[in-house]
């Protein structure tokens, strides 16, 4: 595998957080700075090393992974950002080494004694610049971990690295802008309650025009059985719009007693990419809202990082969630035992169960204009769980369904390359390079509809297809469900 040691990807840096957002979020060292001019605080080195000591002693995985990597190189050609740029620092192991070399220098005996001989390096402003650049060229998709003989997960080291960067006042606008909005307005897109209402009303009108059916979406309804939390992009339009409508139609048809919330109108969680605290904060609002509304359980929409948080972190961070009930589908009576503790179910699990019990009347011919293929988002696929359900649904709602190349499918999927905070205009060139193998694979299938269950996928792939002028529509699995639903 060739590498380009001129570090061609070093020029791609996410823009700096606004000072006002740093203040809103109570981030350390609020100040004016930019991606080229960090204006680090005078004691940055001390703060960084202290934070580093803290993270390696808080996460067993991080210390273990830093210690046991043997530099075998099996991960090197697995990262789409390396394949796309040939920048050696985008090889997962080299990305980790940016962090590992400093860890060795200050926290290991061999590193303190033998220094460069074992790859230990001083922490300098240049290191920090490399950290800010390359830690934010990782979408934390965990593809490398699948192939690592010890399961070393770059994502976890990046989470730790970003904690350290945040501690010295370096975090990108692409994350903090959304997080600040979520924590103050209610969602990443910054949609206030009235705008959310009009979006919902607009969807209702469109459904009326298309099907002749009167649909009413309950908002902030106390005592509803289920709280439905889609990613806020669904209210915004674009490739997400069909998903919102599909879900609303389906809920109406099965007579589901649900509500959406304006306060907790964000299924997604950009905090995930910044660090533990803000992930917990954003997720906390879902739990608080479920409690206030008195619902029985929570249903999550089509969102990738929502899946990561609800499946892996929610119960740990904001549990025990014992004021809710173990999720039971009111339509089929199915107990979602696997979500017994977290009390939150993903809409694909819910819909697949409806189909399995024959509770949805579907006409797959309604999607005959499409040849559909499914993109496994990194989070649902590799944070273990949602691989079969979306496929099960798709096979029931459309007739022309094709699978992608097995080398980049299922747990081996190449992601949309826009997660982890990379969905920003300034990274488009980088992302277009990284996502190339995936786009080629999609083209090879001959599909004209790319179904996915992640709001970031939908936004990113639409951008990519526009750029390459590919006649492929991007949409949610539930958009196709919505099309196939039969109204009597």
């Amino acid at each position, binding site marked *: 595998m*060739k*590498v380009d040691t001129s570090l061609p990807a070093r020029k791609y840096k996410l823009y700096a957080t606004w000072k006002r957002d740093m203040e809103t979020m109570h981030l350390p060292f609020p100040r004016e700075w930019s991606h080229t001019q960090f204006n680090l605080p005078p004691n940055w080195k001390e703060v960084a090393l202290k934070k580093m000591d803290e993270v390696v002693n808080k*996460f*067993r*995985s991080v*210390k*273990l992974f830093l*210690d*046991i*990597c043997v*530099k*075998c*190189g*099996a991960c*090197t050609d697995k990262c789409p950002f390396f394949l796309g740029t040939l920048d*050696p620092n985008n*090889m997962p192991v*080299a990305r980790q*080494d940016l962090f590992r070399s400093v860890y060795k220098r200050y926290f290991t005996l*061999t590193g303190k004694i*033998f220094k*460069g*001989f*074992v*790859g230990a390096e001083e922490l300098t402003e240049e290191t920090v610049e490399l950290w800010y650049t390359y830690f934010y060229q990782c979408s934390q998709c965990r593809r490398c*971990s*699948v*192939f*690592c*003989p*010890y*399961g070393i997960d770059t994502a976890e080291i990046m989470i730790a690295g970003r904690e350290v960067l945040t501690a010295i006042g370096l975090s990108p606008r692409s994350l903090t802008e959304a997080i600040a909005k979520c*924590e*103050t307005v209610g969602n990443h897109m910054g949609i*206030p*309650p*009235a705008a959310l209402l009009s979006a919902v009303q607009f969807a209702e009108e469109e459904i009326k025009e298309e099907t002749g059916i009167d649909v*009413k979406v*309950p908002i*902030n309804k106390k005592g509803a059985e289920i709280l439905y939390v889609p990613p806020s992009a669904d209210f915004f339009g674009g490739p997400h719009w069909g998903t919102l409508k599909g879900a609303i139609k389906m809920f109406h048809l099965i007579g589901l007693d649900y509500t959406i919330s*304006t*306060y907790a109108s964000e299924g997604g969680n950009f905090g995930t990419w910044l660090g533990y*605290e803000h992930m917990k*904060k954003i997720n*906390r609002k879902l739990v*608080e809202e479920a409690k*206030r509304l008195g619902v029985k359980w929570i249903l999550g929409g089509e969102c990738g990082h929502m899946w990561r948080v*609800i*499946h*892996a*972190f929610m*119960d*740990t961070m904001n549990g025990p969630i014992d004021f809710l009930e173990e999720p039971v589908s009111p339509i089929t009576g199915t107990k979602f035992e*696997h979500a017994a*503790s*977290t009390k939150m179910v993903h809409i694909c699990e819910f819909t697949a169960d409806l189909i399995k019990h024959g509770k949805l009347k579907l006409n797959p011919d309604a999607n005959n204009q499409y040849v559909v293929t499914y993109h496994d988002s990194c989070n649902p696929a590799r*944070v*273990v769980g949602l691989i079969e359900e979306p496929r099960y649904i798709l096979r029931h709602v459309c007739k022309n369904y094709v699978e992608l190349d097995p080398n980049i499918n*299922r*747990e081996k999927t190449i992601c949309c390359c826009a997660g982890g905070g990379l969905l920003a205009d300034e990274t488009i060139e980088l992302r277009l390079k990284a996502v190339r193998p995936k786009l080629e694979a999609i083209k090879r299938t001959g599909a004209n509809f790319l179904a996915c269950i992640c709001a970031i996928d939908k936004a990113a792939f639409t951008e990519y297809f526009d750029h390459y002028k590919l006649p492929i529509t991007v949409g949610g699995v539930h958009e196709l469900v919505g099309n196939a639903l039969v109204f009597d």
Partner: protein
Amino acid sequence: MDPLIFFIGYITPYIAFFTLILGLIYRVVRWLSIPIPVRFPVAPAPVTYTGVLKRMSLDFFAFRSLLKGNKKLWIGGYVFHVALAITLVSHIINVYFHELWEVIGYGWYEAVLYSGIFFLAALFFLLVRRILLPNVRYISKLSDYIILVLLISIVFLGVYMRSFGLVDMASVSEYMYSLLRFNPIPPPNNIWFLTHYVLAQILFIYVPFSKISHLIGWILSTTRNMRNITRWKRHVNPWDYPVEVITWEEYYRKFKDELDSIGPDGERR
């Protein structure tokens, strides 16, 4: 006695042995002392302990994850590790239980020599690969080469001694037994053996401080050894802490007009 021989025959063997054992124990205890705040396995993760055992066994016995990722490296790495295991076991038999070969069969005793040759070949493959492949060269530090050179030297000396019968096995065995009894006799005064022996001691000391600690560390890998039951059984983070979020009341005050336009208390039924 030559002070150097005294040193490497009487003192450093104990230092090397105890550094290896105690160092690895310290390493594992240190890892275990750090909490696992979240349950975060990587797909395809099983939900049962049996499933985890199966997954870990396949990774241990067949290097399955590596096989998925890099076939050439898999062959090199697999031959290296199997030859290493054979070498370690046959050393113990040779030195301490030589009579066992009568039970196992001297044919096997001969075969071990060939495993040594495979061992060397695999090590050369790993070294050449590290030097020639640009991506692997980029991630290699000096210590990554040195460890391979050290292993190659040890194995080469071993194979060489064995092939030409340069060392009297019985005297090595006698010396090794004396070490076990903490009453050492002088080591065989044989330059081939002594060099092989000293290099092996250096390796022993190096193991716990280096990446070679992966020989135990992989068992603790949280992406591999955890069950996929996160939503079903709560995983507790010992250092979790409460966070403040905007309350509904604060939110309501902030967007009162808008929420009231939706309905009383922001409710639309």
